[in-house]
């Protein structure tokens, strides 16, 4: 099977222009990157709020945030996607109906970003909380003693000192969110895996298309690794290297 003609037939299937499915796969890749970026941003935002809430919030805030991180991290993303998708669509529509508007259909991209963002937020909360805790208390106290406002302390003292501890975890979360976008294929959203499944279903070349999607994912993760290595080197500038 693995002779030259099979290989060239596979390559024809992957060509960019229409008898080939390359354009579809690239469009899927674009959607995957878009959702991953959006969800990562939402997750970072929720995670920052969650981390500060867990560390500096009142007891009730802490309990509620503990509930959020525990529940979200114990239930499969696939189930959460379904629950949140239906629940949020329902709530939005009921609110719209109550206000006298028409029902709307929430777009797949928006739903995907929102759901994966909520999941990411739970993990980011824990990553950022650990990173903030790694900042020596004396540094923060010194900042306050200098008369800095809490925001200024956060920006000038906390952020630069916590970044080295936060970036490995945040890099990991980026890897997770790029791969979690594949789950949206199950609810029928046209990201990379779904596009390759459609192409494979039409042409019956399952192996070719899933391999191609895998290679694209792998490239994405290798490029991301490089970028995060750069960011990590940048965040670590000025710290001592080597030795424990």
């Amino acid at each position: 099977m693995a002779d030259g003609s099979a290989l060239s037939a596979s390559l024809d299937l992957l060509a960019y222009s229409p008898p080939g499915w390359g354009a579809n796969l690239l469009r899927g890749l674009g959607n995957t990157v878009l959702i991953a970026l959006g969800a990562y941003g939402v997750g970072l935002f929720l995670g920052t709020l969650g981390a500060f809430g867990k560390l500096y919030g009142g007891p009730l805030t802490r309990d509620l945030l503990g509930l959020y991180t525990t529940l979200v991290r114990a239930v499969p993303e696939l189930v959460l996607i379904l629950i949140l998708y239906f629940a949020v669509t329902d709530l939005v529509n009921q609110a719209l109906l109550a206000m006298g508007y028409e029902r709307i259909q929430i777009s797949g991209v928006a739903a995907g970003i929102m759901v994966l963002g909520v999941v990411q937020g739970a993990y980011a909360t824990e990553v950022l909380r650990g990173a903030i805790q790694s900042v020596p208390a004396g540094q923060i106290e010194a900042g306050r003693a200098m008369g800095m406002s809490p925001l200024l302390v956060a920006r000038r003292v906390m952020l630069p000192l916590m970044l080295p501890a936060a970036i490995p975890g945040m890099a990991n979360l980026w890897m997770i969110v790029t791969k979690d976008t594949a789950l949206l294929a199950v609810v029928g959203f046209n990201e990379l895996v779904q596009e390759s499944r459609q192409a494979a279903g039409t042409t019956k070349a399952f192996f070719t298309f899933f391999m191609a999607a895998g290679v694209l994912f792998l490239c994405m993760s290798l490029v991301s690794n490089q970028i995060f290595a750069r960011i990590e080197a940048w965040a670590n500038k000025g710290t001592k290297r080597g030795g424990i």
Partner: protein
Amino acid sequence: MSLADPIRRHMPLRRWVLAAIGLGIIAYCALALNWSWLQTPKYQGMILQGVWNTIWILVVTMVLGFILAIPIGFVQAAGPWYLARPAQAFCTVIRGTPLLLQLWLLYYGLGSLFPMYPWIRESDLWPILRQAWPYAVLALTLSVAGYEGEVMRGAFKGVPQGQLEAARAFGMSRWGVFRRIWLPQAVAGVLPTIGGETVLQMKSTPLVATITVIDIYAVASRVRQDTFIIYEPLLLLALVYLTIAGVIVALFAWFESRLPKRIA
């Protein structure tokens, strides 16, 4: 946190309020939502079967994957380059692509290639290869091997050199050192990580429903399709997974408590 600690003895008021709200929500869900489908014997049987399938797939793939992860981690930590490089590449590929894609590649991809070879179709294994669960078990096992291989690499490297030298000085063989010193210390060091990874693996199991393996997720989807009930089966699913996650966490906490710890 000794017994004499007076603050710890009473649950604070806000916890009681939260617990009351939680119970209220549960009571609302139990009374106001439509659970009539739970009383049908057909669905009861399917749910039990689904939970059982989820659990055995989780246990089998974790055990097999971990057995694979030990050599994969070890050759990366201490092996020659011609073993370390392929192991590293394997971990990169598994960790760099979505599990769903790996699963579909194996099931649809291999599944579409196998029938082209007559000797596979004529072999005794064909009745097994035609089913979906071998592909589910294979994909999930490889996934565990990839992620845990990376964990074990760090674990093997983390065992202090002095321990190994001491064992050699006692006259242990190389295999004896590995079996009695290196491996146990490496595994003991990563037990908390493995517990967390087991929960992550549990969260990956519903993916097998996409290749027609009937786990609890597939059962819930089936109920939703049959009865047009949207939320209740999903809530049951969340409850089942929460329970399994709780059991996993408790089991690993018990494991860890059994390990001898050196108290300085």
